[in-house]
């Protein structure tokens, strides 16, 4: 299917690995020019090589997309290189309170033990960062009368997960989905769509690290914790990053111009809401 993405310029945050990398690869394969952004210089360089191998033009930038100045710098350098930004994928993970305790995160904890200030930190990490990318790219999209914003969110935005110590994502992920929903309403008249993909149980390096942490926390073998998790997934398996990337690519396509304000789970059927 021709998705009409040839020549579009896409900024993909967190694209050195996992869902971000899969998204950069998928958009590259559809003919997008891709701005590969992540915090690690090595990670960015390696990912840029892989995305170039799809035949895409690539602009690699090392930046932290939770830092206001970095987001501005990324979008300016993308515009200098390619003259435009059509697509912006916000893809930032939850903050880590103590890496020694939590590994790769997300910040672990129950409501009962969570200092109130951590809700502020998580809000800045997830909600402010998604909004910053929109603030920097929306004026360009409005001028072009075409744009696509997609947030890589979490299934807990719609159905908080309370069987794991997850109070911060449970609180802030819905906020990000709400921001995207209101942005969608404001930007629709200008040809800019804005959607959220709600991930659940995707086999990324980070998720594997999380399950390893959770298994240690519960004093159980990792395989047992994973089996318990997948037993609750209707399709009975973890998802692949490429399955998220595929939906994102469709949402960014010319064919999805009337799909906006949506929060779409790609979670093997875990979410039980109507």
């Amino acid at each position: 299917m021709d998705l009409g993405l040839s020549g579009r310029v896409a900024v993909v945050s967190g694209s050195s690995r996992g869902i971000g990398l899969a998204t950069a690869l998928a958009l590259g394969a559809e003919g997008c020019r891709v701005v590969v952004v992540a915090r690690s210089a090595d990670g960015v360089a390696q990912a840029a090589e892989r995305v170039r191998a799809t035949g895409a033009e690539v602009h690699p930038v090392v930046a932290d997309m939770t830092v206001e100045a970095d987001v501005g710098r990324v979008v300016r350098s993308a515009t200098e290189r390619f003259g435009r930004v059509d697509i912006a994928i916000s893809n930032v993970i939850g903050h880590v309170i103590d890496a020694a305790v939590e590994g790769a995160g997300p910040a672990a904890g129950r409501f009962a033990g969570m200092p109130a200030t951590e809700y502020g930190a998580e809000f800045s990490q997830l909600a402010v960062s998604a909004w910053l990318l929109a603030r920097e790219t929306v004026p360009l999209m409005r001028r072009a009368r075409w744009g696509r914003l997609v947030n890589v969110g979490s299934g807990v935005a719609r159905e908080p997960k309370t069987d794991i110590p997850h109070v911060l994502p449970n609180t802030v992920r819905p906020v990000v989905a709400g921001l995207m929903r209101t942005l969608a309403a404001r930007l629709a008249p200008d040809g800019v769509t804005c959607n959220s993909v709600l991930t659940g149980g995707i086999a990324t390096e980070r998720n594997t690290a999380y399950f390893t942490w959770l298994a240690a926390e519960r004093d159980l073998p990792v395989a047992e914790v994973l089996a318990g998790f997948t037993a609750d997934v209707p399709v009975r398996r973890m998802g692949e990053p490429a399955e998220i990337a595929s939906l994102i690519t469709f949402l960014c396509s010319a064919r999805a111009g009337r799909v906006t304000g949506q929060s779409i789970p790609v979670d093997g059927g875990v979410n039980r809401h109507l």
Partner: protein
Amino acid sequence: MDLGLTGRLVVLAGAPDAARDALGELLAEEGAVVVTSALAEAAQCPVVEQGAVDAVVVVLPPAPPDAIDVVTEVSTLVTAWQPVVDTAALYRAVVPGMASRGRGRLLAVLPTAVKAAGASGGDLDTAVGLGVLGMHKVVAAEHGARGVTINAVLRGGLATDADVADAVSWFVSAHSGYVTGCAVSVDGGAQPSVF
């Protein structure tokens, strides 16, 4: 109907306005002992620190009314979020006492914009309010077994202060023990969605 509020200590946190007054008056009529506080200071109230609070009602202030696409400063978002941080601090301060007594009621009053973007509130009300509801689900799961319930009343349409106070008083009553993690619109049917 006896709401079972006689002698119950209720902390009512929010701006000193007619909505808070209406809530305080109705709860007092029903026999509750009502302590009012600004939200930002509520977690440090002496009665909270003494651990004897039976119920908390938070009236979230309206977020800055700007449409999300015209907001330019990070500080606007952070300011809008601060009441949620204050609410988390207040809940966290009262929950251990409630759990130890096996009974507690937590309730937040928010705009219906939480369930319908753009309805009866601004864009930031939608985003911020969703955070409150997410946190509520966690508190409900963690503390439901010890008799602590947590709910939200979503104000919208042409709801009066009295309409809101009536609904809130039932949710903090002795009768609402099997309702938790719930958000109920008090909006005269204005909410367009089925759910």
